């Protein structure tokens, strides 16, 4: 199984519908400071970590919606989709491709938001979505996601905190 494509729609600094194709093997993502590289990582965690306490740097989920950049109007909702090649059926769904989508819409009073999940473009509950991720072992809580700053955090941990990392794995 591998990630074939990421589709972003008004997610953080990606204002237009942006498709990011990915291939198997070793991909490097590069570019200047503030260009949007970690925002791509945030999009992946946004979809794969709906219940995760993993900091997406946004104070609130609504901060993930494109804020208008320099001169445009802010968007009302943001959407991120991950398209996986599932020929090995690692995700327990009987299709060769699985598309996982999450959408956050700012509510009209601008105070709250709506959060929706879709599997292959069909609406799904948070519970079903989360179960799917856990079964395929691609949830955002794993150590396969190393965020900018995680190295420093591990270096500065106390011995007790470090041992608790192993507890959580057990």
């Amino acid at each position: 199984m591998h990630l074939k494509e990421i589709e972003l729609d008004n997610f953080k600094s990606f204002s237009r519908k942006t498709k990011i194709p990915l291939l198997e093997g070793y991909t490097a993502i590069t570019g200047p400071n503030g260009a949007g590289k970690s925002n791509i990582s945030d999009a992946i965690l946004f979809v794969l970590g709906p219940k995760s306490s993993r900091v997406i740097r946004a104070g609130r989920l609504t901060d993930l919606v494109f804020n208008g950049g320099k001169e445009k109007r802010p968007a009302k909702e943001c959407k991120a989709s991950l398209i996986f090649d599932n020929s090995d059926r690692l995700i327990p769904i009987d299709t060769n491709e699985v598309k996982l989508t999450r959408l956050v819409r700012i509510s009209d009073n601008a105070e709250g938001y709506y959060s929706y999940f879709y599997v292959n473009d069909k609406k799904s509950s948070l519970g079903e979505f989360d179960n799917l991720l856990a079964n395929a072992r691609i949830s955002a809580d794993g150590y396969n996601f190393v965020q900018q700053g995680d190295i420093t955090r591990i270096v500065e941990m106390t011995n007790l905190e470090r041992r608790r990392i192993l507890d959580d794995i057990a």
Partner: protein
Amino acid sequence: KKVGFQRIFGAINENFTKIFSELSGGGEAELLLENEEDPLSGGLIIKARPKDKKFVRMEALSGGEKSLTALSFIFAIQAYQPSPFYLLDEVDMFLDGVNAENVSRAVGRSSKNAQFIQISLRKVTLKEADHIIGVTMQREGITDIVMKPNIGDIPDTPPETELKL
């Protein structure tokens, strides 16, 4: 519960020692429990000795050495619970050229069995990758991307020239 912890500890410790030796070109490292009979009542100590040096407390290691040690620990955990894909965001920041290259070569080897996506500003990392995604921001605060797949097949265009790094 304690037996489960010991088994995990043993497996991760073995991975950690092997990976650190690889990344540091011959150094030694190991994980120790503060309380061996009752692990859950004490912490986990990381002991590391870079090549040709004496063991020093982790706090006395250099910035780059600490970073390499922490990264070996993360890789050791990853090896214990393998995943089909990995995302690493600027893990080579504190490393000098030689260490950053060791890390990207190790990632290159592991990428035969899993998909790796590494965000990096370092040329030595970019040159080990199979594919490169260039991310830039236009003047209106909107991100643009450009993808160069299979860069190994292009004989004479070093990727960084293309992306004006």
